[in-house]
């Protein structure tokens, strides 16, 4: 369900595994939310055109956050070829074009204009009632985005436009604008309004975090930091750490009553108020069927393989997969909320569905013992799944006494840590929010797992002699027991 990047990536990956499926979507064409947003028509995720890596190589994906993934070289890296070179952030129309091109080139078939109306369970199947009749399946994957505008229950806030209702920018000329919310959407609007608005006030209870400080996508991105600098230099933008108590009509404008943590009230007059207060997941009747949701975005609670924690057979793809938080080590979330992260989740999910629901077994490739160390260090240095989904997706190698050394592919780290089967090693790249990322190897021996972080490298290359020596020492106890490959 859904034809944004998450639905498209999953459909592509299912097709490659030979799994019959239907994609239904309410939209008239592929692209999902990128058919409309961001409101200022430029992405927050970059695609670097020149990287020293050929665009058809897997390693290029690390630098291209926007293209969907393909097995065949001709369908990889769709985005850089479409961009006009004025920015390494694609414009919204370029992103939409990229998704449409991928869908066309890879032959993804979507039943567009099909509205999902309701859901019910019949035996082992789910039945979706749609504007195109009923669809019945044992597995349904919802890739419907976190796209339903949300307004917190603040008196009067329901009377003001949401981020999604933003008017043409010139209509805000010489106005005093109050923006409720200090996340990227609030700062995106503030940035776009800097040359238009007379005064900008941004307010929410928590202080603003900046991505350049958190070293993660948590916080306001550098593209939108200008209003923050304006406020810091007392240029006229005001940033408040306050609750919003009430938004009241006041003549042709509004009066916004705020209160800080010390209990002090401040009322701010404004000509326009904009609720940049986020989005929730449009799950329709799924909660009534038993899908538990949590948090402000009402994300469904999920297993490490993106199945509803509370209703078997219901899975998720796309940005909703951020609801499967993984370990969130050092407080750092995965990148599952963004294309560059969830495109890998979709591929892992397709493999998982093939094995667990459609009886298509994985055929792990055997690895030679001599090739193992260089292979693992190459993966942590250049494997795009590990770079984009740090401490979330892992490269897993089984080291079995009977069957030898086998490459099990990409697996959610949480699943590896919580399943106690056989000797194995999982390789991840991780960050602690303070410096460069560093490789971590989790070695499972006799059912218990030991964690071995390696040092960061200033040039982010972990293939050198020191890394080989250390990894060899860490793996020795399990490698010496693994059978020689046939």
């Amino acid at each position, binding site marked *: 369900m859904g034809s944004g990047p998450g639905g498209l990536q999953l459909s592509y990956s299912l097709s490659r595994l030979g799994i019959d499926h239907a994609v239904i979507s309410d939209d008239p064409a592929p692209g999902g939310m990128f058919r409309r947003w961001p409101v200022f028509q430029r992405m927050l995720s970059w695609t670097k055109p020149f990287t020293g890596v050929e665009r058809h190589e897997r390693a290029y994906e690390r630098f291209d956050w926007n293209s969907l993934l393909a097995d065949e070289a001709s369908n990889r890296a769709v985005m850089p070829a479409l961009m006009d070179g004025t920015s390494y952030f694609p414009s919204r129309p370029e992103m939409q074009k990229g998704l449409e091109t991928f869908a066309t080139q890879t032959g993804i078939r979507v039943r567009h204009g099909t509205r999902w109306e309701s859901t019910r369970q019949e035996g082992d199947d789910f039945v979706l009632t749609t504007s195109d009749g009923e669809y019945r399946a044992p597995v349904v994957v919802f890739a419907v985005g976190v796209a339903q505008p949300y307004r*917190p*229950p*603040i008196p009067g806030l329901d009377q003001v436009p949401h981020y999604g209702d933003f008017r043409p920018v010139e209509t805000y000329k010489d106005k005093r604008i109050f923006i*409720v919310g200090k996340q990227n959407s609030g700062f995106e609007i503030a940035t776009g309004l800097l040359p238009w608005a007379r005064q900008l006030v941004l307010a*929410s*209870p*928590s202080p603003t975090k900046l991505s350049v400080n958190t070293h993660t996508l948590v916080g306001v991105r550098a593209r939108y930091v200008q209003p923050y600098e304006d406020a810091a230099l007392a240029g006229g933008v005001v940033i408040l750490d306050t*609750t*919003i108590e009430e938004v009241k009509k006041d003549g042709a404008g509004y009066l916004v009553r705020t*209160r*800080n*943590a*010390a*209990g002090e009230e401040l009322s701010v007059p404004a000509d326009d108020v904009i609720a940049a*207060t986020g989005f929730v997941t449009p799950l329709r009747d799924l909660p009534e069927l038993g899908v*538990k949701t*949590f*948090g*402000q975005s009402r994300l469904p*609670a999920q*297993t490490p393989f993106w199945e509803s*924690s*509370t209703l078997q057979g219901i899975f998720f793809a796309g940005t909703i997969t951020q*609801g499967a*938080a993984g*370990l*969130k*080590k*050092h*407080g*750092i979330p995965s990148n599952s909320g963004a294309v560059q992260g969830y495109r890998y989740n979709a591929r892992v999910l397709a493999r998982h569905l093939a094995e667990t629901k459609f009886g298509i077994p994985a055929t792990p490739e055997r690895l030679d013992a001599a090739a193992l160390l260089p292979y693992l260090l190459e993966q942590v240095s250049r494997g795009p799944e590990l770079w984009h989904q740090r*401490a979330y997706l892992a490269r897993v190698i089984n080291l079995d006494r009977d069957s030898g050394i086998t490459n099990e592919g990409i697996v959610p780290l949480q699943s590896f*840590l*919580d399943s106690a089967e056989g000797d194995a090693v999982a390789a991840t790249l*991780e960050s*602690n*929010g303070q410096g460069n990322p560093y490789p971590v190897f989790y070695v499972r021996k006799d059912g218990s*797992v*030991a*964690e071995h*972080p390696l040092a960061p490298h200033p040039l982010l290359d972990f293939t050198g002699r020191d890394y080989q020596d250390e990894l060899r020492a860490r793996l020795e106890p399990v490698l010496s027991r693994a059978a020689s490959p046939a």
Partner: protein
Amino acid sequence: MAVRDDVVNTIAAFSLFADLTGPQLEEVAHLFDESFFGQGERILRQGVTGSGFYIILEGTAGIRVDNVDRSVLKAGDYFGEISCLLGEVPVSDIVAETPLRCLVLAATQLEGFLTKHPRIMYRLLQGEARKLKNTTKWLS
């Protein structure tokens, strides 16, 4: 902002936050992230780095050391603070015994949070004293 009214109402009844005003409770609700764990899911893993400070909103969790169940935590209880305060890995697993809803704060944020809210620090200290008393009693 009343974004997370239900969280504010829930934590208002917890002893850890007994001294906070309404706006301070809202600030706490915004500072912490919310997490959900399915029944049987592990939240903390013995020996694995990078965990945080958790406060249970709903459900129960078991403390498990070397695969042996030791104790049960319920709404209002918290865990992970020892590894956050000491900068060391957890010495036990924490496992959701029922579907579990928690607030979570990264270890790196705990010091700043506690020093900004001395009353919460005092309540936490009381909690740690209680745990120490129980352990001492058990040992003797």
